[in-house]
C-alpha cells in the first residue's frame, strides 16, 4: 500500500516537472516570439498552453486520488496540497504566455523607446525557470531567490510604464503600439507574480510554513 503511495508521489513529482517544463517552454517561446517577432514561436507558446491545460487536469486528478485513497499526512500532505496550488499558478503562467504570444501578432518591440521590456521578458523567463528548478530539486535558496527577482520585475514594470508614456507623448501615433506593449508588460508582471506563488508553495512544502506569514 505504502509502496503504491510512494510510486504515485514520485509520479506526481515527475508530472509536475513535466508541467513546469511545458510552462518554461510557453514563457520562453512567448518571450522570444515577442523579442524576435517570430510567429512560429508564438504558435509554440500557444501549443504549450493547451498542453498545460491538459496536464493541469491530469495532475489534479492524481492529487485528488492521492488525497482520497492514501490519506497522506505531514510532509506528504503538504507536498500534495502545494502541488494542487502550484498547478493552477503554472496553468495561469501558460495562459498569460499564450496571451503574450497572441499579442505578438499585432505588436513589435520597438528598437528604441522601451529598452526595459526586453530586460523584463528575460527576467520573467528566468524567474519561471528558477521557480520550476526550485521544486524540481526542492531547493529552498532558489525558491527564495525567486521572490527577490520579483521585486526587480516589479521595478522594471514601473520603468516600462514610464517609457511607454514617454513613447506615446512623443508621438500620438504610437498610441496603439504603446497600449499593446503595456498589456504585454502587465502580463509579464503577472507571470512574475505567479512564479513567486509557485516558489512560495515550494517553500511551504519544504518548511511547512507559507512565507506569506499566516
Amino acid at each position, binding site marked *: 500500500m505504502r509502496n503504491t503511495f510512494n*510510486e504515485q508521489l*514520485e*509520479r506526481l*513529482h*515527475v508530472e509536475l*516537472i*513535466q508541467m*513546469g*517544463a511545458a510552462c*518554461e*517552454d510557453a514563457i520562453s517561446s512567448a518571450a522570444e516570439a515577442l523579442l524576435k517577432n517570430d510567429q512560429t514561436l508564438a504558435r509554440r507558446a500557444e501549443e504549450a498552453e493547451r498542453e498545460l491545460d491538459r496536464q493541469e487536469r491530469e495532475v489534479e486528478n492524481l492529487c485528488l486520488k492521492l488525497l482520497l485513497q492514501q490519506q497522506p499526512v505531514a510532509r506528504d500532505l503538504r507536498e500534495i496540497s502545494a502541488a494542487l496550488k502550484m498547478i493552477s499558478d503554472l496553468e495561469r503562467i501558460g495562459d498569460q504566455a499564450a496571451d503574450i504570444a497572441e499579442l505578438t501578432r499585432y505588436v513589435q518591440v520597438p528598437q528604441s523607446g522601451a529598452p526595459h521590456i526586453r530586460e523584463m521578458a528575460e527576467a520573467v523567463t528566468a524567474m519561471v525557470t528558477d521557480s*520550476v*528548478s526550485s521544486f*524540481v*530539486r526542492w531547493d529552498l535558496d532558489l525558491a527564495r531567490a525567486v521572490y527577490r527577482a520579483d521585486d526587480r520585475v516589479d521595478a522594471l514594470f514601473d520603468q516600462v510604464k514610464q517609457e511607454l508614456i514617454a513613447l506615446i507623448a512623443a508621438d500620438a501615433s504610437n498610441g496603439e503600439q504603446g497600449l499593446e506593449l503595456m498589456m504585454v508588460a502587465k502580463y509579464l508582471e503577472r507571470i512574475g507574480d505567479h512564479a513567486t506563488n509557485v516558489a512560495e508553495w515550494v517553500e511551504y512544502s519544504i518548511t511547512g510554513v507559507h512565507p506569506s506569514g499566516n
Partner: protein
Amino acid sequence: MKKRIFGSILAVSVTVLAASLVLTVGVLHGYFQDRILAELIRSTAYIAQGVEEGGLAYLNSGLPGDSRITWVAADGTVLYDNWEDPADMENHAQRQEIREALTLGKGTAARYSDTLSQKTVYYALRLSDGSVLRSSDTQYAVWVMVLQVLQPVALMALLAALLALWLSGRVARQLVEPINAIDLNDPDADSAYEELAPLLSRIRGQSRQIQRQLLDLQQRRDEFAAITENMSEGLILIDQETRILSCNSAALRLLAADGPAVEGESVLTLNREAGFRRCVEESLAGRPWEALLERDDDCRRIMASPVERDGSPAGAVLIVLDVTEKERRDRLRREFTANVSHELKTPLTSILGTAEILENGLVRPQDISHFAGNIHREAQRLIDLVNDIIKLSRLDEGGHMAQWETVDLYALAGAVESQLAAAAESKQVTMTLEGGPAQVRGVPQILEEILYNLCDNAVAYNRPGGSVTVTVSAGAAEVQVQVRDTGMGIPPDARQRVFERFCRVDKSHSTPGTGLGLSIVKHGAAYLGGRVKLESEVGVGSTFTLIFPAAPENT
C-alpha cells in the same frame, strides 16, 4: 517455535492428565464393584445360614445391613422381600441370577436402573431346600461417580494445568533460547543443538557466498562506473518511470545539470528542455529518438534507445554527445558551398552579360577591347578563385603534395617581396624585409603561398604611403615571420572570422580578392605544423605572426 513448543507441551500434559483421570476412575469403579460383590456374597451366605435355620421368621426378625433381601421359592414365587410386599412381585424364575442359582447353586447379575444413574448388583444363592436367597446392592454408575468427584478433580486439574502452563512456557523458552542466540551472520555450528549443525554450516557457507558475490558485484559496478566516468560521452540509464539508474559525470556536464545526479530521481531533474523530454518520452514508449539541444554556443546530440525486457519496454539508454564542433564544421561547410556557388556565379554572370552584348553587335567597334578586357578580368577572377579552392581542398585532404624540403624563410620572403614590388609601388606602400636566414622544414610551394597571401593582404589593405615590414627571426626551437602593416586593422569581433573561408571584413568587396587567402594561410600553416597569430588595432594596422618549428639543422 516457542509458541509451538509451549502448545505441544501443554497439550501433552493436559491429555495425560485427562487420561490418567479416566483410567483412575475406571480402575476405582471396578474395584468398588468387586468390593460390593464380595460384601454381598459374604452377607448372603450369613443370611442364608439364618434362613436355613429359622425360615421366614428369621427374615422377619430384622436383618443386619441395608441390603435388599429377596427369598424366592424354587418355582420363582417370591416368598419374602424386605423392601416390597412379596404378593405384589412377579415370578422371579426368569431372572438371570435366579436362573443361574437354580441350576448352578449361585448366580450374579448387574442391571442398570431406568435412569441409568444407578446399577444394581445381584447375588443369588440356592439354599438346601431348593429355594433361592438373593441379596442386592446398588452402586452409582461410573459417570455419576465422576460427577461426584468432579469438583475436587476439576480443582486439581486446574492446578495441574496451571502448573503445566508455567512449566511448558519455561521449558519452551529454554528450548528456544539457544536458537535465538545464534548469530545468523556468522553462525557457529557448535553453539546450538547438534541437530541444527548441518543447517548452520549451510547458512554459514551461503552467507560467505553472498558476501563474495556482493563484493564481486560491487567490483563490477565500480569497474562499470570507472569506465563510464572516463567516457567523454554522457551515458544515462533510466527505468520506465524515468528514474535514473546510472548516470556518468560527462552526462551531467553536457546537460549542464546544476546538481549531482541522484539515483532514483527522475531524469527530468537533470534537464527539462523540450527536445530532451521528447527523447525520454519516445524511448520509453519503445521508439528510438534523437534530438539536438542547442544552448548558447553549445550543441548536444541526445540519442535515446529503448531497452526491452521480455518484449516489453523496461527503460531507456540515453547517450549525450557534444556535437558543438561538428555542428560548427557542418555550418561552415554549408556556408562554404553557398559562398562558392555565389562567388563562382558573380563573374560568370558578368561574363555572360558582356558576351551577350558583344554577340548581338550592340557594341561600337572601338569599345570592343574594353568589353573584352572585362571578360578577361572576370575570367581571371574565376581562375584565381578556382585555384584557391583547389589549394584549400588539397590542404584539407593533406599529404600527397610536393616534397618536404628545408627552406630558408628569409630568402623566400625576399622572393615574395619582389613579386609584390609592382603592386606595392602602385599603392605607394614601402616594403621592408628585416631579420636573417631561418631554416624550416616544409613544402616550398605552400610556404610561398602563405607568405604571398599575407604580404598581398598587407599591401592590398594598406593606406597609401603606408608600410609593410616583414621580420624573419630564428629562435632555438621556433622560427617566426612577422608581417606588420599600417592598414585599416581588423575589428576585434572579426578577428576569429577572418580565417574562415570567404570571410571579407570589407563587405563592399571594394578590394579585389577571393576571401580565401587567410583561410589558405591558416590551413597551410597548420599543415606544416605551424600556427598563425593575429594582433590588430583598428586604424593602426595588423600584425600576422607565423610560427614554425625550426628545422633540425638549425638547432
